[in-house]
Structures are given as C-alpha cells and as structure tokens.
C-alpha cells in the first residue's frame, strides 16, 4: 500500500465515509479505532493493535468456518483495533477487504478496468476450462446464489455477464454512487469462487 491510497482513505474519512463493508472506523485523538458495525456501543471487545491480527479475524466466521471470500457478510464480532498510523489503518483494512481501497480509488480516477464475466470464463484453462460452456442462464443461476449482499457478497457488481448485468438484484447492487457513509467495495471482475461455482453448476447439469 502506498501513500496515495492512504491519503485517499483519510480524505474519505474526513468526508464522513467511515464504513467499509462490515467495519466502521473512528478517530480517537491521533489513533484510529476499527470495529464491527454491530459492535458500536459495545465495551467488552478484545483489543487488537497489529494489522496482522485482522488476517486471523477475517479467516473465520462466528461458527469457526473458513471464510475464503473476505467480502462475505459474515465478519465475526467482538474485537477492536487501535492503530497509531494511517499506514497501519490502510493495511488492516486491506487484510479485512483485500484490494478494495485500491479498486475504489482506481474507480474514482476512472482507471478501474471492468471485465465481462464471459471474458473471464473464456480465458480459463485446466480444471476451469469447462466454464467456457456456461450459458447466461447458468451464470445467472449461480450469481443469484453467490453474490447477493445479504447472503453472499457485499461487493458492488460492475461487470456484465456479456452485455447486460445479471438479473435479480436491486439497482444499488450495480452502482458505486451514493452509499452515504460507506466506502464501497467494487467488484471489477467475477472472482475465482464464482468461476468455481459455475463449474460445479455445469458438472451438476451434466
């Protein structure tokens, strides 16, 4: 993480955009406090101060299940970070929500490249080459199951399947604008979890 992302993060905080995914950032003197949105007002929280601690918190959900997708709405509660520098803050956010600050800054500056899902599937090889055969309907079936903010993923979908965005989502799932207090989580390309799920769907169909 470099200085431009850190400066942008400070700027967004100054604008009152203090939420990233399920975490909320507060300033306390010269420090930054980070906690789960649902833990605001809670006092009995485990104190953390190393960015690397975020890796372990983000790794497991409340039931102890592995979270391969860090933008799933399953971040566990019960902790609070106190961080002394914006560099540590940016790194901690990076561990909770990988690549999201950099993606959002790129989107703001008009340099975030978006890849249609069809292109993503067409370049797969090996195990995932099968996904080239997915129809728009196959893809939509899986996207509906995997990408909903309530149950699957908090990111904002910016890619179309071919020409059109997937159906079955509210309009705000596709836009970075608005959002009030939130720093949005841009999804510029379908992730490997989605590609793998499409492969499983095709296997099941066959």
């Amino acid at each position, binding site marked *: 993480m*470099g200085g431009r992302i850190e400066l942008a993060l400070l700027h967004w905080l100054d604008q009152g955009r203090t939420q990233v995914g399920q975490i909320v950032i507060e300033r306390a003197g010269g420090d930054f406090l980070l906690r789960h949105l649902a833990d605001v007002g809670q006092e009995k929280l485990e104190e953390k101060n190393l960015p690397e601690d975020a890796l372990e918190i983000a790794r497991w959900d409340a039931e102890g299940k592995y979270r*391969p997708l860090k933008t799933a709405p399953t971040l566990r509660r019960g902790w609070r970070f106190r961080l002394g520098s914006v560099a540590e803050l940016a790194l901690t956010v990076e561990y909770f929500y990988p690549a999201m600050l950099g*993606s959002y800054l790129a989107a703001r500056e008009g340099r975030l490249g978006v890849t249609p899902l069809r292109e993503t599937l067409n370049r797969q090889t090996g195990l995932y080459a099968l996904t080239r055969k997915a129809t728009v309907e196959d893809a939509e079936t899986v996207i509906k199951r995997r990408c909903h903010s309530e149950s699957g993923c908090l990111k904002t979908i910016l890619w179309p399947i071919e020409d059109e965005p997937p159906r079955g989502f509210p309009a705000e799932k596709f836009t970075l604008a608005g959002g009030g207090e939130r720093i949005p989580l841009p999804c510029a390309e379908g992730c490997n979890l989605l590609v793998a799920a499409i492969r499983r769907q095709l296997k099941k169909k066959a």
Partner: protein
Amino acid sequence: MVHKPDSALIILGHGSTVNPDSDVPTFAHAAEIRRRRCFGEVTCAFWKEEPSFRQVLLTVESDDIYLVPNFVSEGYFTQKVIPREMRLAGPITERGGRTLKYCEPVGNHPQMTEGLLRRARETAPGVPAAETSLVIVGHGTSLNENSGAAVKKQVERILRRGEYGEVIGAFMEERPFVTDWRTLTTCPNVVAVPFFISDGEHSYQDIPVLLGIEPEITAAASQRDVFRHNPREIEGRRLFYASAIGTEPFLADVILEQVARFDKQREAVLA
C-alpha cells in the same frame, strides 16, 4: 542485502477456497519482509483468494514491481496461469509507465534442498539415513510437463550427497504415484517430505490419504488439536510424514534472494 525503497514486492501464492492454512506462509513471509523495510511496499496476491493476481496491481503504487511466485515448481501456475492473469510478456513487462519483474519461483532456489533435508531429519530424529528411503512428494500434473521437474531436481541433488539409502520422487497426479510408495521404496524406514509451500489441502489432507496413514480426508491442520503422529507402522515398515517446508522462516530470505538473482541475471543480459 536487498534495499529497494522505491520498489514494490508482490509475493504470489496459490491460496485456497477450502483450506484455511494455505495462505498462511505467504502472508507470514510478506509480514517478515515488510518488517525488514527493504521494499517500499510489500503485499501478496493469490490464484484462489483475494487480492487476486488480477486485482493486486491496484493495491501498489510503485512503478518498479518485483513478482516472486511462492510456488515450488516452474510449471502450470508459474508458466501459464500467472502470466495470463497478470498479462506478463516475459521476465520484464512494461505497461502504463510501470515495470513488472517476474522472478523465478522460490522452489528453484538451492536452499530448498537444505530445507527438505532438515525437515527429513527433524521428522525422523535418530533414524539412520542409510536405512531410510526418502520420498520427496510433489503435485505433478498432466497440464504441464515441467511441473514435476522441481521434485526431480531435488531428488538428484539429494542423491548426490549419498546420505540416504534411497531417494525417490513421487507425485499426486503423475507417475510414479505416491500411492505406490510401498513398492517404490525398499528400506525399512520411509520418510516422506511434501515439497509444498503450505500445510494446506494437498500436503496436509490429500497426501496422508494417498500414503495410507489416514483412512479419509481429515480436517485442516489448524482445526485439529494435534499435528500428525510419527511414525506409522505399515506392513512392517516405519513411515514418517513431514510437514511442508514452505512454512519455514528461511523462505523470507529465499524470496529476497530470488529478487537479487533476478537483478543479477538482468545485469548479465544487459552487459
């Protein structure tokens, strides 16, 4: 000693959507290198996790970027998947005012041989090497003919030392198969060392089943109370199974040395 305050280092790992331990060594080596302050920026990227190979360049700001694959073999991932996903043109890619320097994977480094031997000795302390078959276990794949080469190279190096009664390479997905260790080896003691980066799905969960020391796939290492017991008595032989060597702290130095080697090779090309 690498000192590049104006450059970024990106450590490229496999990652996993099912095993929670797969990314641990890659993050640990990144944290160690960051602590040493030898690069302006240090981060990781993964095939199966985020930041992905596609996203990671958005997270660094330096124009001079070293990419070191935290992979054991120069095979399918380092020759095909990473160059495709990161749009690399070769060892050096110039794009949008940035230079991407694609280094060799950690598995190519000579120190890996020492790491494998150290693991073998630790796993079977006091067991005479001359009466032991050492099995270096790799993934191997039909997707790339070079995939098993890293294991074969290690086997040759270890054989030359004449320390072990027998040294062989065996694979999950290509011949000779690790499932056939009983017939591939002849010594009374067998030490199997996985040539893998992490104690992840393949090395901790799959290979023990292939070796016959677990009847079925167990939970991940971090979700079990004990690491595996050694040795197992199987058909009158003593089988020892090691943990992966990629978790060892010396890998942080190997990553930095791959950067230094890259620079040295480029200097030689330009000279």
